[in-house]
């Protein structure tokens, strides 16, 4: 991904600013110059949201971890507890894995209401049960008042991949079709609508959901024709397609009119000056699939409750600059870029 970085981090005098956590290029640069240098290994360098590796006992396993700092903790359509299950389950599922076990690590601020903590834990337990995973280990830390904000949760997860299935961000090939599983931007707008300083009302609920059931149906339908899947969380569809373009060394061409976006989400984004394609999702996926399997796959997805609005939004093309280009509804062309800087901190 180094081609996209134009300037080195200032490791001597620089400080972490909010853009380093925003899911855009600044964060990618931070990871590349600090964490990859320190941890570098073949699995990490693949740059996926999860690592997939053979186990000594045979078969392949997938592992992932994610931290949750969402604000507010309770939001329309979910809370930090259910989100901490869905996000991690989805990262496992995107590798085609069957998620099995999760860990739960809580960092709690002194003074946090016990009732809220119980509510979060119960929501987390229910989400795990619904997703068919078990929370098998955990950790609890309390920090002084003011040293955290309510509660932060970190979850790790492991799962197993069916034999012969390889899904990875570097597998998109020119001619492949790009599919999204449903409407874009719901989670981000639901969070924004519940922030104190943004006074607008909407009935939009977060799409926070575990996608492993949908993925199972997709693997059953398209199996070896599936190239890759990724959940477009922070940074939205735009960030995800740009990441994938770089990872696979291709470009994408998508069509604005084919991307499902709810009317209320479009309206809220209009009001706030945001592009729905940059807004986070927590229950949607992007899949790249061989062209001959695309129609059947969309049909199978639509038959699943979490894929009713699935649509082919475009295709993979050859492009040595890895542009994500879009035909606008207006009829012109434009790039769909990563978002620079901070759009909305603590979305997940």
């Amino acid at each position: 991904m180094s081609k996209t970085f134009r300037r080195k981090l200032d490791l001597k005098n620089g400080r972490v600013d909010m853009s380093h956590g925003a899911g855009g290029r600044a964060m990618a640069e931070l990871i590349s110059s600090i964490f990859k240098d320190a941890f570098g290994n073949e699995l990490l360098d693949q740059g996926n949201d999860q690592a997939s590796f053979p186990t000594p006992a045979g078969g392949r396993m997938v592992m992932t971890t994610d931290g949750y700092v969402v604000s507010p903790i309770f939001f329309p359509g979910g809370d930090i507890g259910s989100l901490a299950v869905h996000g991690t389950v989805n990262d496992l599922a995107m590798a085609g894995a069957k998620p099995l076990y999760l860990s739960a690590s809580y960092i709690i601020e002194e003074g946090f209401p016990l009732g809220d903590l119980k509510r979060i834990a119960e929501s987390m337990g229910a989400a795990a049960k619904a997703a068919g995973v078990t929370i098998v280990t955990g950790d609890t830390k309390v920090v002084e008042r003011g040293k955290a904000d309510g509660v932060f949760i970190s979850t790790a997860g492991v799962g197993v991949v069916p034999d012969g299935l390889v899904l990875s961000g570097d597998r998109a090939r020119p001619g492949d079709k790009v599919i999204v599983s449903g409407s874009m931007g719901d989670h981000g707008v639901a969070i924004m609508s519940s922030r104190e300083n943004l006074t607008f009302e909407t009935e939009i609920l977060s799409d926070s959901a575990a996608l492993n059931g949908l993925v199972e149906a997709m693997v059953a339908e398209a199996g070896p024709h599936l190239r890759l899947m990724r959940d477009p969380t922070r940074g939205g569809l735009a960030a995800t397609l740009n990441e994938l373009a770089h990872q696979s060394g291709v470009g994408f061409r998508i069509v604005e009119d084919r991307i499902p976006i709810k009317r209320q989400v479009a309206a809220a984004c209009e009001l706030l000056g945001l592009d729905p394609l940059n807004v986070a999702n927590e229950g949607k996926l992007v899949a790249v699939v061989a062209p001959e399997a695309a129609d059947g796959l969309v049909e199978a997805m639509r038959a699943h409750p979490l894929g009713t609005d699935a649509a082919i939004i475009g295709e993979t093309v050859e492009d040595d600059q890895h542009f994500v280009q879009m035909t606008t509804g207006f009829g012109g062309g434009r790039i769909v870029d990563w978002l620079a800087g901070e759009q909305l901190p603590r979305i997940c």
Partner: protein
Amino acid sequence: MKYVDEYRDGDKARDIAAAIAAEVRPDRSYAFMEFCGGHTHAISRYGIEDLLPANVRMIHGPGCPVCVLPIGRIDDAIRLAKRPEVTLCTYADLMRVPASGGLSLMKAKAAGADIRMVYSSLDAIRIAEANPERQVVFFAIGFETTTPPTAVALKAAEAKGLENFSIYCNHVLTPVAMRAILDMPPTPDEPPIAIEGFVGPSHVSTIIGMEPYEVFARDYRKPVVIAGFEPLDVMYAILMLVRQVNEQRAEVENQYIRAVRADGNRVAIDLCDEVFELRDSFEWRGLGAVPKSALKLRDAFAFYDAERRFAIETQPAEDNPACECGAILRGQKKPADCRLFGSVCTPETPTGACMVSSEGACAAHWTYGRFRTRQTGADLRRRA
């Protein structure tokens, strides 16, 4: 989305594009400036260039408040924010604008300054009310559109008796800047710009109305078509400009009739007159010092003036000499003409302000349009 989708209709766009293509004379070219960054953004975001004939060229104007603010004023804001008693409230776009010494408001915030991003001037009032022990300064920028909300905030502070609130005023005036562009003498390194008409401001015109643009039609013989920010508005305004040029007319026309009244918004104008007065001169990035081009608080409201409360004296600060923001804001160069564009200057690591704001010509071209000026890795290395 009602009242929005109608103005983004692809079929209507093709109809207007066909009309423009039919009416432009093949034996000549047309060059129009869209003054406002909002129009620049719409042109890039909807790919309007793809719908225009090759002989119609749009020149991006300086109507991006973040872009035209000189570095010295950002330096002032950073110095203010670093004072232990100050909470600085700013619109988010300003956070990443490069200031002197490699600083920006975002970096100052990371280093400990109390800087809050607000969506509205009244958010700053709420922050001042909630934090009576803090000196809350509202970093007010923008053209005539954002000036009335600043005046409203000031009146609210006065009504509430808020003593810990002040305004760092950087409001600037559109017609004066348009005139400065037309009056600009050509220089040896920069070609003169032959603007044949303006796509006139959208939101600014809802405040000031049509009359302030008459001078351009009358004295400069340049047609002005006030247009909304939706892509069909822009397309239709371009068609209206082509017609004026073909018919050798120079008039102020209003395409944005659903929002702009000929006499503007009287209440807002009167409120601004009560609160603000003209500065003798104000420094613009790209245009230099322009007389009578900006506003300051009247003496009657001196108490709320951060410049007086904190004795701010703006120090001149140099732009990066390789940065072409100035020429780009004047319409003399295009973003891709700058050798920093896309090499060291990107939205993540901007060198100039035009790469920061979504209304800036460079950010718009980078974010939406750079596939049109494809560069190879070797091109970029050569230029950097």
